[in-house]
């Protein structure tokens, strides 16, 4: 076994050291470790001697010094020569990375933070250098290069923080890319050709799609169990599709239906390890778009109710022709309500608040104007409380089901 004295001591708070000693003693009593091993492990750590007050003062002082330096640089930035400005950016970046390297083992969390700082300095440096040389161009180009620079750090260090930064930059990039370049609006794609045309734009300018694929690849490589990264990736995909469909459809109803259908499909098809997360996103998409479509005024400006009459059964046509917007909104409400109940039954509890919102939306809409306020709020409160009890009942059922599956044969 290597000599612990050969390693520099790792700093540790006195409270943490006390916990460590307590656990080491327990392991020794349990014959998991020998006395020599306990002593060797304890000898690796150096409980901090400085008091909290002095630490806080030092930290505050360092922060103020840093702030003062930054303020001086910012105030005189345009007066510095170009060479000085570029040199400053490069120096700060290199120092961040080298510092992260130096303290990798002694202060691992600070080392990661310095790596992240380096990525931020790099990104800011791209924009600052463009400013220094008066370069124009769309900001998405700079964001693209920023992402390219972060990927090595995310890959080599398998660092989730770098991936989160990459995802945040990608989100802005995707939003900006298609707002800068989008071609034409298309009439709502009820025909197959319309859907193909919608998909073709991803082939014609595939950069955002490639970025999304890289993000998924990185997430899988870094930690395929990491739910925050997974959910952020799903959000980015939905943003990409949402923006594109918003630009593509010049009919708000078609845009919202384009949210309802994939949301439903996502909720229905969610399975496996990520059933809860994917199902939740699908239900949220269905719920948000579907709830808006329960408002008759949304359908009023759309061509969909008028066009749909050609597909109608003749018996329904009478009511439909008289009140197409109301008919569509009621139809959507029924669909959303049934879908949410189905998802609740499937164990996707995110459906419960959306079902509640659907009920409350009609309750407010129908009863607010004529009901006495006292009764209105009382009944509304009873509805909410009832939904809360229902949700708790569902949670309990799920816990019991999980317990039975795991514990009982």
């Amino acid at each position, binding site marked *: 076994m290597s000599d612990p004295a050969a390693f520099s001591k790792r700093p540790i708070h006195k409270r943490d050291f006390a916990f460590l000693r307590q656990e080491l003693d327990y392991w020794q009593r349990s014959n998991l470790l020998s006395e020599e091993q306990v002593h060797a492990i304890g000898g690796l750590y150096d409980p901090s001697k400085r008091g909290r007050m002095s630490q806080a003062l030092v930290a505050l002082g360092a922060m103020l010094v840093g702030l003062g330096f930054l303020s001086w640089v910012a105030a005189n930035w*345009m007066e510095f020569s*170009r060479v000085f400005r*570029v040199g400053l*950016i*490069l120096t700060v*970046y*290199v120092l961040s*990375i*080298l510092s*992260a*390297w130096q303290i*990798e083992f002694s202060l691992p969390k600070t080392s990661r933070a310095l*790596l992240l700082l*380096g990525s931020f300095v*790099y990104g800011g*440096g*791209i*924009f*600052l*250098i*463009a*400013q*220094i*040389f*008066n*370069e*124009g*161009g769309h*900001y998405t180009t*700079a964001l693209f*290069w920023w992402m*390219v*620079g972060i*990927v*090595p*750090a995310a890959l*080599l*260090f398998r660092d989730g923080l770098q991936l989160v930064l990459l995802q945040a930059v990608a989100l802005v990039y995707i939003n900006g890319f298609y707002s800068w370049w989008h071609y034409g609006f298309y009439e709502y794609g009820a025909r197959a050709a319309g859907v193909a045309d919608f998909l073709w734009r991803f082939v014609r300018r595939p950069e955002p799609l490639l970025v999304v694929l890289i993000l998924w690849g990185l997430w899988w490589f870094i930690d395929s169990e990491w739910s925050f990264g997974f959910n952020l990736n799903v959000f980015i995909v939905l943003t990409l599709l949402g923006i594109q469909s918003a630009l593509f459809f010049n009919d708000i109803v078609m845009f919202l239906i384009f949210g309802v259908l994939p949301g439903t499909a996502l909720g229905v098809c969610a399975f496996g390890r990520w059933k809860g997360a994917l199902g939740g996103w699908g239900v949220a998409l269905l719920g948000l778009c579907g709830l808006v479509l329960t408002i008759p005024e949304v359908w009023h400006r759309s061509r969909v109710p008028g066009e749909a009459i050609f597909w109608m059964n003749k018996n329904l046509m009478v009511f439909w022709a008289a009140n197409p917007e109301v008919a569509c909104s009621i139809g959507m409400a029924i669909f959303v309500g049934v879908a949410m109940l189905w998802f609740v039954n499937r164990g996707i509890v995110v459906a419960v608040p959306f079902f509640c919102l659907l009920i409350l939306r009609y309750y407010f809409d129908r009863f607010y104007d004529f009901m006495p306020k006292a009764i209105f709020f009382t009944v509304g409160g009873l509805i909410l409380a009832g939904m809360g009890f229902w949700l708790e009942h569902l949670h309990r059922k799920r816990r019991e089901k999980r317990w039975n599956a795991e514990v009982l044969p």
Partner: protein
Amino acid sequence: MRRAAKYLLIMVVPLAVLLLRPLTSALVLARGEEVRLEIEPFDPRDIFRGDYVDLRFAIEEVPMSLMDPRPGEENSQDDEASIYVTLAPDDRGVYHPLRLTKTEPSKGVCIRGRVRRHRSLPDDDDTVVIDYGENLRRFYVKENTGLELEEAARRGNVEAIARVWNGRIILDRIEIISMK
């Protein structure tokens, strides 16, 4: 992989981007010939890069009569193709277009651009609108000083100093000159 290699590797791409992207601009500023140009700025703001003045130059619109060869003649200029604008100074030292050619001239100060469109106005010479690229569109200024420049431009008291090298042009500074 060794620790040192990892840390050095993650710096390669960012340092390459930070150093190589502005390399051409830096070379033009270091080795280019100084030219003085007339401008008409206005004052917007870029949320990422700061205050800037959006610039329009007199050299962006060039009379078609300066084209060599003329449109309609053999080998004349197509839209969207690259073009070389030869500049020459007037009595005040302000540079104006002298000639437009398809190939880079062997001598004189010239900038490479792209023909954006032709413009025909009644009672006026037909003109060619030329795009010189992103480096001649905007000039970044200290915060809240753009309006001062805009005011000066409205009075015709602003000139841009740029550097030209190898067909490329980079803005160096903007000067408010004394009242005309």
